[in-house]
């Protein structure tokens, strides 16, 4: 690169920082959704850059389903402490007490209660008027349609047929009382960019992204982790397997990938050669327009 040229990663970084600063300038009470995954790690890293040398001017919100991997909880607590951020954890305790799970209630109902409802409740409780999310447009076709600033009505719902025009890098932060925006600073990043940036910036990520021998159950094309067994179906038997995770969600609904990539160079090489999309390992996305439906209801 010549003197006054930015690499594409640096251009994406500058755009994301610009967006985060606009939100802090124009909204009363922003919050950053933190899911502990790789995209969240990148988003948090960018937020630290945006407000350096100050600490983050907003809290992190983890919507916890109770079904996350123990490595995720451990990583979350250690990393958040290390960067000096404020962490809020919210769970749908009613649903958890009633034993909500994907096996008995179905994936859609479980996600609706433990993720969407918990998120909407947490946003309302905190009175947040802007919530950052780490969603990327390359992940899924309805996400490919989303604005950087995505309006939500009083019920937290998205109206994809009637989105606000978004011109240049001028973001319209005007909303009515009760409305909010979801802000996606990583919109223009691809999975490959995320991995390249994690490698370039040496951003810490949950160890589950690195290959290791783990206990796995094969269900159709999916490799379901079997660290605990209560979510397994009748007759399923776990066996050890060298694998890693391309994306992280809840244990019962996140598939692993057959892989021996144990460091960042190998992960980048694997991402470059991948023929299947990363969302393929997420059970929630399967179905005709499930992501769009969930997003309309308020899901990230």
């Amino acid at each position, binding site marked *: *690169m010549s*003197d*006054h*040229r*930015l*690499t*594409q990663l*640096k*251009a994406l970084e*500058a*755009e994301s*920082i*610009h967006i985060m*600063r*606009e939100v802090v*300038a124009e909204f009363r009470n922003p919050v950053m959704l933190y899911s502990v995954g790789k995209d969240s790690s990148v988003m948090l890293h960018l937020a*630290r*850059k*945006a407000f*350096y*040398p*100050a*600490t983050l001017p907003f809290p992190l919100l983890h919507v916890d389903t109770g079904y996350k991997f123990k490595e995720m909880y451990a990583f979350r607590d250690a990393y958040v402490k290390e960067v000096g951020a404020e962490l809020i954890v919210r769970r749908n305790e009613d649903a958890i007490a009633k034993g909500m799970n994907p096996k008995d209630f179905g994936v859609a109902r479980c996600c609706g209660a433990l993720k969407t409802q918990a998120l909407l409740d947490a946003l309302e409780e905190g009175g947040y008027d802007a919530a950052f999310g780490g969603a990327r*447009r390359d992940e*899924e*076709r*309805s*996400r*490919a*349609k989303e*604005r950087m600033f995505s309006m939500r009505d009083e019920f937290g719902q998205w109206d*994809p*047929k009637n*989105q*606000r*025009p*978004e*011109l*240049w*890098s*001028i973001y*319209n932060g*005007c909303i009515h009382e009760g409305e909010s925006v979801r802000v996606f600073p990583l*919109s*223009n990043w*691809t999975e*490959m960019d995320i991995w*390249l940036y994690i490698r*370039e910036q040496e951003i810490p990520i949950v160890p589950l992204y690195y290959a290791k021998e783990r206990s796995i159950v094969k269900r159709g094309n999916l490799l379901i982790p079997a660290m605990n067994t209560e979510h397994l179906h009748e007759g399923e038997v776990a066996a050890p397997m060298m694998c890693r995770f391309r994306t992280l969600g809840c244990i019962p609904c996140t598939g692993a990938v057959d892989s021996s990539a144990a460091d960042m160079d190998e992960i*980048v*090489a694997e991402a*470059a050669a*991948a*023929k*299947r*999309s990363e969302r*393929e390992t997420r059970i929630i996305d399967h179905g005709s*327009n499930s992501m*769009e*439906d969930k997003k309309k209801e308020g899901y990230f």
Partner: protein
Amino acid sequence: MTALNFKITEEIELLRLVTVGSVDDGKSTLIGRLLIETKGAFEDQLLAVRKKKNKSDVTSADDIDLAMLTDGLSAEREQGITIDVAYRYFATPKRKFIMADCPGHEQYTRNMVTGASTANAAIILIDARHGVMPQTRRHTHILSLLGIEHLIVAVNKMDLVDYNENTFQTIRKDMQAYCAKQGINDLLCIPMSALAGDMVVIRGQQMPWYEGETLLASLELLSVMGGVDKAPFRFPVQLVNRPQTPALPDYRGFMGTVASGTVKVGDTIVALPSGKQSKVKEIVTFDGSPDEAFAPQSISLILEDNIDISRGNTLVHPHQLPKQDKVLTANICWIGDDALKVRNKYLLKQTTTTVKAIVTAIVSKTNIHTLAKEPSDALAMNEIGEIELKLQQPLQYDSYADNHVTGSFILIDTFTNNTVGAGMIQ
């Protein structure tokens, strides 16, 4: 891939691209073709939209319903039309592309403006059988107003006109004539068949009479960010960072994105509108304090003196001041449901400044067919015109022709809070 390629992947530049054109000009097919041939779409995504569900692999663009790949909303698939912009990503060893795939229907022109506003280059699709359509003209005129650096006309569906050179040349001349009227003389026209693949990524055998590069090769060769670092320095202040912690009791950093030009430590700067001067003491970033920063980096500036600066102020060099006025003349794409009329009041947001504005005159409305400027007392949705505005406070700006960041603004309806106008200051 080898390790060498990854090095290249990190260092490549970004090209923001927009694809426009009338309905059924084959935009989805072209995008599908580019995604498949650059591996910008994954196997499982392609399999999900294959035409024959019993076929287990996808080897060519013919096997899949390409519109299903790009039309991400259920309402779009139901109606078979594209409503909103879809953003697609693909990369070659030379460049990463962000492609905004825009709707062709006139009703959704505002979404097309959204997709086009950030683009460095545009592909204008034309169906070789139909030639230049009204919507082709509307889109081309909007692209020209937006000052998109590079326009590429893709004369598509050449397979349906027997790859006839005369057909191509007629369309090329039509477009050249239309573009010349608005000052665009540098127009690249490429004949192609997105369906068969000729001239998209590979040359093919059908059009030996065309000697130019394929579409993808042309996109890889375009220059980007031409000269934005040579333009006068503009730094709209987004926020003032004052941590006031024991470790940083007196830190006061002005946060923002360099809109244009460069700034160095030691430079004398003027804060506008106050006109107070100081010198740059430090350029602060998380990764250290460089001696120089340039557009479009996001940085913080620390100044030698404690002068009053807040969000909405602009830092510039004293010998390169922007214009400053309470009265503006601007070209506008009207994208609001309710028409723009004289005496209407809006909020105007330009860089980090938001001010009240009143429409004092509609100078003209542009006839997109003839490009004639006609008198009008209103601009309805999707109409383009020239207006005069009076502002509550003076604005620091450059003309859009000189600076896309400080020369652009949006108008916000104060009742609905919607973005209703895309303005380019003259």
